[in-house]
């Protein structure tokens, strides 16, 4: 039985006025909203809206490792579980986690681990659960960005935050932060992440088609976008601490 409606992509990804289909300029990010500490059972948590992406992240740890045999005697382990809700995509996803979800979980683990001091927590685990409730392109970058906030919210010592964004090429033009439709109909997509303590790249994937010059441009653009998002992360953390301070401030809002 064919589906009623196909997931069709537009022929052109730019409007006549040169803007992208959602009205953005080439280097413009989609609207991002970040909230920290929104789940009260987890040791740390964060919520993100990024375009139509809606993602929750929660951190548990340091805690006992299940199953036991995964524990390492000389360091803690970081485990990331990236999952998509069945209804987060155009065609219903099957409930069980698939190969793509496992691969992205691994990618994000590798991306976050450099900022942690796992050697201080032998025999324990940190578990980061990331659930994408609505997906609209760039979920691995958005997930990395919100997971870093959840780690910070858990009070786990970190060398720095981690921030992630994708750059790519659509209709021959290089753009920042591809939306879902741009990701699927475009030519290239380069998700990357930065660890601010050393300003190095800790997540890098690419699928598409680029030459060495384009790579340089991609990386330059990415860096500017990453800085912009980093500021939002810092503000989200600050506003949480301000909120807490207010709560403890005799119940009175600071003037």
């Amino acid at each position: 039985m064919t589906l009623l409606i196909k997931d069709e992509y537009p022929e052109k990804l730019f409007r006549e006025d040169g803007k992208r289909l959602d009205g953005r300029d080439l280097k413009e990010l989609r609207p991002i909203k970040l909230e920290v500490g929104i789940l009260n059972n987890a040791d740390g948590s964060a919520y993100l809206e990024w375009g139509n992406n809606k993602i929750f992240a929660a951190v548990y740890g340091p805690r006992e490792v299940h199953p036991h045999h995964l524990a390492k005697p000389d360091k803690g382990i970081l485990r990331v579980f990236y999952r998509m809700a069945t209804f987060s995509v155009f065609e219903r996803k099957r409930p069980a986690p698939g190969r793509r979800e496992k691969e992205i979980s691994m990618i994000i683990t590798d991306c976050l681990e450099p900022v942690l001091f796992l050697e201080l927590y032998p025999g324990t685990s940190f578990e980061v659960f990331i659930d994408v409730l609505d997906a609209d392109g760039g979920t691995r970058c958005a997930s990395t960005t919100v997971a870093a906030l959840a780690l910070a919210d858990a009070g786990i010592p970190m060398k720095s935050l981690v921030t992630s964004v994708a750059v790519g090429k659509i209709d021959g033009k290089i753009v920042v932060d591809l939306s879902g439709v741009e990701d699927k109909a475009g030519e290239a997509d380069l998700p990357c992440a930065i660890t601010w303590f050393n300003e190095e790249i800790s997540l890098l994937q690419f699928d598409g088609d680029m030459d060495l010059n384009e790579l340089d441009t991609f990386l330059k653009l990415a860096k500017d976008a990453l800085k912009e998002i980093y500021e939002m992360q810092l503000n989200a953390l600050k506003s949480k601490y301000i909120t807490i301070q207010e709560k403890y401030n005799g119940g009175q809002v600071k003037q």
Partner: protein
Amino acid sequence: MMNIRRVISKIERNYIINNLKNEERIDGRGLWDYREWKIKHNLVASAEGSADVCLGDTRVITGLKYEVGEPFPDVPDEGVCTVMAELLPLASPLFERGPPDEQSIELARVVDRGIRHADCIQTKKLCIKENQAVYILFVDIYVINYSGNLIDAGGISALTTLISSQIPEGKWVDDHVEWTGGYLTGETIVKELPIVLTFGKIGDIIFIDPSLPEELICDGRISISVTKDKITSIQKSGPATFSIDDIQMLNKKAMELGNLLRDNLNLWQYKVNIE
């Protein structure tokens, strides 16, 4: 943050029970009061319907997807609606990764049966062409934060999702389905609004909407689904037993409180209007 993995201590347990004996609860509610409800609808752009429901600190997000498939041979002119539930590990340290466990199966089944047997969904409206093509609706419930009484939160969440839904309307052309350009909405699909209400029992005391600490020491629970004037589903769980008088009283309460809640929540406000 409360560490809900620890065994609730005897002292705490007694504290909860002693309060209950005086018809008081540790969060200040009376025996028959719900915690506060907060409902948002149509938050998931990728879904054909969605709801974000908070009951106190319990939070549940539900979405609807559809497929078009062949009807079951014994009901060739009716579509299908299935409910799935997942207890996300981020929602509680009590939840583990892996295939659905008993608690998530129970949540899905009770919500599913509450809907199925209450004439809630007009399954004949989900038929595109008899014997050939019907809608299959997937109502998938994700628990985002667990603070007790998932069933009632899940029930309201599923209902709001269905009411808020907006599904591309198909018609049968020759031997396949084409999109008319229009939509089936919750207004067309949903008829009755069954409410599922869950009561906890600790010792001899019975109360509605168990919070997390109450749920963890509960001897048992009863979930009752009601329409305006009918009981449509009952599920007892946990090792408690209930006297026949209790059961009669609870069904009466369920009817009463269900009508109250249906009025208060006014779920039809979440329907989508399409010009």
